C-alpha cells in the first residue's frame, strides 16, 4: 500500500524547498478532515483483531483522509498566491469514540 502522490505545488517538511529560494511568506495554511470509521470496515477490523497484523481498511482510510487534508491545505495556499508549502506537519486527534480529525499544516511561501 505504497502511495505515490504527486502534488500540484512544491511541498516539503523542511524549512525550505531544496535548491530554491523563498522570496515571500504568506503565513500558515491548514487543512483538515474529520472521519468516522465505517461499520463494514470495523467488522472486518474486528475480525482481523483476533489474529493481529495490519488493518488494511484503516490504513487506507487514514491515507485517504490525510491526502484530503493535504489537498485542502494546498488549495488554501494556492488561493493566497503561493507556489509552495514548507515545513508541513501532520496531527491526528480523536474527537469522539470512532471519529478522528486528521490535520495538516504548513507555511505557504513563494519560491523562485
Amino acid at each position, binding site marked *: 500500500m505504497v502511495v505515490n502522490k504527486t502534488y500540484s505545488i512544491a511541498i516539503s*517538511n523542511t524549512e525550505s524547498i531544496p535548491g530554491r529560494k523563498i522570496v515571500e511568506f504568506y503565513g500558515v495554511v491548514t487543512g483538515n478532515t474529520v472521519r468516522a470509521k465505517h461499520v463494514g470496515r470495523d467488522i472486518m477490523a474486528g475480525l482481523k*483483531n483476533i489474529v*493481529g497484523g495490519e488493518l488494511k481498511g484503516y490504513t487506507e482510510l487514514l491515507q485517504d483522509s*490525510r491526502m484530503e487534508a493535504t489537498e485542502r491545505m494546498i488549495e488554501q495556499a494556492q488561493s493566497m498566491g503561493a507556489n509552495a508549502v514548507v515545513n508541513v506537519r501532520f496531527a491526528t486527534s480523536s474527537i469522539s469514540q470512532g471519529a478522528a480529525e486528521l490535520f495538516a499544516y504548513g507555511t505557504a511561501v513563494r519560491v523562485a
Partner: protein
Amino acid sequence: MEDTVNSFSLFFNYGLPILLLVFAYFIGNMIEKGHFRNIRKREDAVHGFPVVSFDTMPEEWRAGSSTMVTGSIVISLDYFKRVIAGLRGLIGGRIKTYEPLLERARREALLRMTESAKEQGYDAVFNVRLETSRLANARRDGNGTAGVEMLAFGTAVKFAGRIG
C-alpha cells in the same frame, strides 16, 4: 437435556475464549514472523538508498526537484498478546508483546515511504519524521478494536548532478 444445555453454556463461556486464544496465538505468531521476513527482504531491496533524519541536506547533495513522501500503516496486536498485555498492565513493568508490534509497524511505515520515493524516481529522502497515534482503545479483557498508526514522512529529492 439439562446436561447438553449445561455443556453448551460451559463451552461458550470458557471453551470458546480458550480456543480463540490458542488460535490467535498460533496464527498471530505466524503473521508476525511472516511480516518480519517480508520487511527484511524489502529492506535489503532498498539497501543503499539514502534515507536520513537530518533537517538540512548534506552539503554534497545537489538537489533538483523535490516533494514530500509519506508511508503509513495501521496495525493491531492479536487477541492472545492483548490478553497478556492486559494482565501485564495489572502488575506493571515491561510489556514485551507490544515491542515487536511497534517495531514492525515503524519499519513498515519507513519502508513504504522509501519505496514510494524510489518508485517515483527520487534519489534520497531527508528530514524523516516518525509519528505514532493510537487509533482506538482495546478493552481490558482483550476485546474491542485496538489499532496503532505509524506515519513516516520526509522530503524526497532528485539529484541534479553526481554526488561528491
